Structures are given as C-alpha cells and as structure tokens.
C-alpha cells in the first residue's frame, strides 16, 4: 500500500525529464539584450526609433528559432539623456538582468559614461546612434565597445567633401555649444586642413537660443561661402530661420542632428535646402531587404503609416543591423559570456544587412561597422527625408 506513492513519484520524475527534453527552445530562459537610450525628453523620438529597429530584428530572429535555441528578449531603460542615469542603467542591466549585449542611444556623453564600465565589466556595448569618435576608439586594451553608426571624425570628412563638391572655398562653422559641437570642431578643422580649405570662422550657439543672426552675420563678414551645421533639431531650425531672415542663400551642409525631429515644421521652407548626412533612408527605391523591413515595421507598429513616420531612419536601420550582428556573434560564441561574444564579433560576416552587406564588420583594429563610403546625403522634403540623387 505504501509503495504506490513512490511509484507515482518515479513516474512523475520520468515524465518531467522527458518533458524537459521535449520543451521547445522558446520556452527556456530567454537571452536578454539591453537598451540604454533617451526614452523621454527632447530626444525621446530617437529612443523610439532604436526600439523599433531592435524589436523588428528580434522578431525575425525569434521567428527563426532564436539564438542558442533561446528566444531573445529586449529590456529597456531610460537614460533621460543624462550620463549618470545612463551609467546606473547599464550597470543594472549587466549585473541584475544579465543582458548579453547593451545597446546605446543618441547621446554621445551618455555613451562615453558607459564605455569605461563596459570595458571593466567585460560587457559588450553596441552603439547604434551616438557618433562621438572616442566611443569606439577609447584606448582600452580589451575594447568591448562596437558600433553600427556614423563616426564624427569620418562624418566631418564627408561634410567637407560635400561642401567642396558644392564649390565651397571658405566654409564657416555653426556649432552647438556642447561636447558634441566640440568634437566636431576638432574633426572639421582637421578635415578642412586636409582638404587645404581655410575656415571663414567658427561660431557657437546654445540649445535655447532663438536669434542666430549675430553669429551668422560674423560668418558672412568673414567671407563664408558655405556653412557646416552641427546641432539638434531645435537650434538647427533657429539657424535656418535666421538665415531666412537675413536673406542669405548660403549652402548649408549639416551633421544628422536635424533628422531627429520636425525640422521643416520648426525651420520653415529654408529647412528643405539643407544637405544632411545619414546612414540610411527608407525613401526612394528600396532593396528587397528594405521593403521587407518597412513592411515588418508597419505590421508591428500600426501608427507607422507614411514614410515620414520612419524618420529618422538611421536609428531604426542602425539598430536593426546591429541586433542581427549581435545575434550572429552570440550564436558564433555559443554562449552569452562577454569575452566569448566579444571575440566572436571579430569572426562574423559576411552578413547581408539593411544598410549594406557587411563583409567583415569588425576587426581588432576597427570596431565601427560603417565607414565613410556608407554615408549618404539627404534633404527634408516636407516631413520626409529623401536621398540626394545628384
């Protein structure tokens, strides 16, 4: 009589063991990946774009069986564009949530705060927007920071080349007065020197400045025949409105800041004449991959109806490719351990991505998957960002 319960227990154990083996991959603990980005504040739209790019890639990977036989799950934290908050969030994601890779946001200062922690904790950190040169070129002996985005120093070379193409001989610099502006001041000076062009002047402005006429008037007096613009959408809009008031038809070549918001709504008609660097645009003729990703975006996020809802495309496209590259690295590493994943990043490729086909995206000497040849120049047309076709 007292044997029956024992039998039952054994039967139960056997059943459990059999069951565990038969459980589909997806029911195991997921592989977590983290995102630390601005989900609120002026740059909230950037965090939304990155989230969408990552999520669409994750959906694709999970539909194909996940990675290491496990589902991928995204864990997001808001850095509020604040470096201290970003660092706390990254630490929490790595130490408590045990994420395999941390993805970063739009703000270079936040990413710069996370870089030393990522290298110290041996946690792979993937930049998908912030373009500050030293984020990936950080001098660490074991560098855990990778990036699928533009690099300021290379963008500055591209901006100078674009201005020269438009016939500029003496461009002026209009820069936001913060570390991002400073990093580009150095880069633009270097690129101008390399191209043998003098600068007409260097002017700065604050994020909340309304009237940039005094700065622009100085550059005009200095003989500027083109302007380089480095600023986010709000001050950039004030720059073009001031140009409009002055009636000065000087060509403007811009870093990608204005793409982060409603540049034409805020800046008026003159905003449509600004050349802007981007890594990707969903406008124009798309590759089959581009069509597929756009369709997936529309299906998952019904609020995306027109192409103006997928601007800025860079956040979506960079995040999408970066997520796939990270999944390939995790699969290659066969584990989610930081050092193994880092080593695997060097071994992946070729991968046919959204922005381009990555032959060998990363090597010990190069942690940036995109190079100058991958940048495109675009303009706003109404609310949409379209590639220049010249």
């Amino acid at each position: 009589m007292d044997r029956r319960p024992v039998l039952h227990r054994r039967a139960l154990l056997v059943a459990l063991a059999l069951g565990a083996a038969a459980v589909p991959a997806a029911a195991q603990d997921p592989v977590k990946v983290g995102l630390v980005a601005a989900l609120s504040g002026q740059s909230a739209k950037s965090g939304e774009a990155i989230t969408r790019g990552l999520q669409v890639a994750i959906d694709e990977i999970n539909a194909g069986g996940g990675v290491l036989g496990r589902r991928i799950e995204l864990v997001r934290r808001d850095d509020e564009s604040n470096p201290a908050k970003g660092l706390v969030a990254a630490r929490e994601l790595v130490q408590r949530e045990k994420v395999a890779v941390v993805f970063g946001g739009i703000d270079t200062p936040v990413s710069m705060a996370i870089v030393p922690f990522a290298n110290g904790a041996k946690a792979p950190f993937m930049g998908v927007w912030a373009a500050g040169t030293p984020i990936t070129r950080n001098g660490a002996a074991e560098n855990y920071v990778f990036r699928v985005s533009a690099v300021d120093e290379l963008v500055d070379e591209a901006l100078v080349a674009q201005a020269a193409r438009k016939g500029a001989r003496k461009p002026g610099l209009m820069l936001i007065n913060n570390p991002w502006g400073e990093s580009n001041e150095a880069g633009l000076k270097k690129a101008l020197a390399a191209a043998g062009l003098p600068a007409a002047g260097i002017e700065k402005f604050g994020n909340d400045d309304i009237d940039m006429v005094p700065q622009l008037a100085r550059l005009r007096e200095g003989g500027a025949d083109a302007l380089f613009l480095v600023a986010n959408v709000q001050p950039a809009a004030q720059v073009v409105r001031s140009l409009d008031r002055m009636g000065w038809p000087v060509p403007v070549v811009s870093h990608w800041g204005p793409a982060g918001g409603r540049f034409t709504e805020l800046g008026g008609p003159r905003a449509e004449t600004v050349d802007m660097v981007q890594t990707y645009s969903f406008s124009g003729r798309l590759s089959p991959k581009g069509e597929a990703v756009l369709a997936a975006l529309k299906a998952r996020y019904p609020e995306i109806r027109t192409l103006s809802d997928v601007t800025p495309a860079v956040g979506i496209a960079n995040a999408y490719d970066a997520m796939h590259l990270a999944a390939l690295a995790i699969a290659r590493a066969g584990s989610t351990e930081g050092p193994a994943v880092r080593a695997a990043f060097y071994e992946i490729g070729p991968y046919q991505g959204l922005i381009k086909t990555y032959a060998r995206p990363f090597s010990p000497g190069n942690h940036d998957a995109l190079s100058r040849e991958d940048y495109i120049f675009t303009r706003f047309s109404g609310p949409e960002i379209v590639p220049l076709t010249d």
Partner: protein
Amino acid sequence: MLVLSALVSGLAQGAMYGLVALGYHVTFAVSRTVNFAQGSAMMLGAVLGYVLGVREGWPMPLAVAAALALCAAFGLLVERVLVRPFVRRGSEAWLMATVAGGLVLDNAAMFAFGKEPRALPSRLAERPVEILGLGLYPLQLVIPVVGIAVAAALHLLSRRTAHGRALLAVVQNPTAARLMGIDVGRAVALSYAGSTLLAGIAGLLIAPLSSVTAEMGTLFGIKAFAVAIVGGIGSAPGVVAAGLAYGVVEALATALVGSSWTQIVVFAAVIGSLALRPNGLFGAAGPRKV
C-alpha cells in the same frame, strides 16, 4: 552693419526678457515675494496656445484668451498653495516652493504635451520684412512695443490710480492697509495672477519665433530674473530697460567678440552693473527699518 543688425536683434530678444521679468516685478512690488515658477508660466502660455489653437483647432483668438485665462488661474494657485501658507508663518520657504511648483508644471507638461518641440505658426513670423537692410519678422517689432506698453501701463497704474496706490500701500504696511479697508489677500492674489498672465503673454509672443517645448521656460526664467535684479525689481520701467540692455549686450558681444565669449561678457556686465548699482539700474534703496 554688424553692429546695427546686432542692435536690432538684441532689442527684440531683450524685450522678451523684459516682459517675463515684469512678472517678477509685479508680485515683488505688492508682496515682497517672487514667483519662481514664472518661466514655467511662460511655457504654459505657449503650450496651451499650441494645444488649443493647433492641436484642437480652436480659432486662434479664442485659444489665446483661454490660454491666458488658465495662466492667470495658475498664478492664483501658486499664490494660494505655494506662497500664502509660508508667508503667513513668516517663513521664506515660498522661494523653494515656487521653484518646485515650476518643476512640477514643467514635468506635467512634458507628460501631457509630449517631448517633441513643435511649431506655433503665426502670420507675424512667416515672411521677414526688410528694415534698414535687415530682415526681421514683424513679430520681432511687436514684442518690444508690447513690453514697453505693459511697463508704461503698470507704471501709470501704480502711480496715478487709487487702485494702484492701494496695491503699493499693501507692501508698505499690510496692517495699516488692512485698517484702511484694503483687501490685502486679494491684492496679493491679483498680483500673482497678473504676473503669470504677463508670462503667458510672453510665451505666446515668443513661441512663433522659437518653438514650443515643455522645457522652454527654464533658461528664460533664469535670464529674466537676472534682468529683474539688474533693472531694480521694484521698478517696471527699470526692468524693461534692463531687459533691452541685456539683449543688446548679448547680441553685441556675440557680433563683436564672438559667440564663445557671449556668456562671459554678459554675466561680467551683470556683475559689474550690480557692483555699481546694488539696488539695480532704476531701483531705489528701501527705507531700512531698525
């Protein structure tokens, strides 16, 4: 040309500082307290103007009237909840309370309005007109006119009318004023409503030139407070004059020395002016009570 253009844009910019700074003056003149949520009230005017006039599609005059009425109501609320209870206890904590009130409003606005800067269109800020070879939006000329007119009206109101003199009596001696039949509580509450109303007007005037965001009032509020102190917070014409001077110095510094030097030059000028005239350019030292 460089100097002329800086002068004109400096005057337009300075008039905006002056208009917000007048709000600080109004409550100070009546109650010796200051509403540090003034910058947030300016933001409230602009955000409500955008939400009602653009998002909800109300006719603009109606949207502006409603926005200003709500700004005035915000002033009444600030006085009732964040100032009066502390003043009654003889505490100076209204200072921190109004700062905190402004932060609460900024964040609530960010939550309700959204995080993206939006444009408040105005026919007065669409096409520039050319004056003396300079391009200006008509609105840039309207703002100094409004600022100077409001300052003049306040000055006349307080010096030439019985009502205005009654308000000023409140600050001299509240007890005596009360004995003379002046409703002190009402006078102070009205001054708060007036101060946030002015800030709301400033917000609605500035928004078409810049953009509407939940954070637009923060820096403006601080600069306007510097202007109020430099001008002599007790004097309406002084505050507006200091606003214009602040804007002109800012623009001239940028045009002549370069934008890297703007803040250094401007705040050195603020310190210098306070060292020379500690009570402000137009302020008078009050009688000291021993």
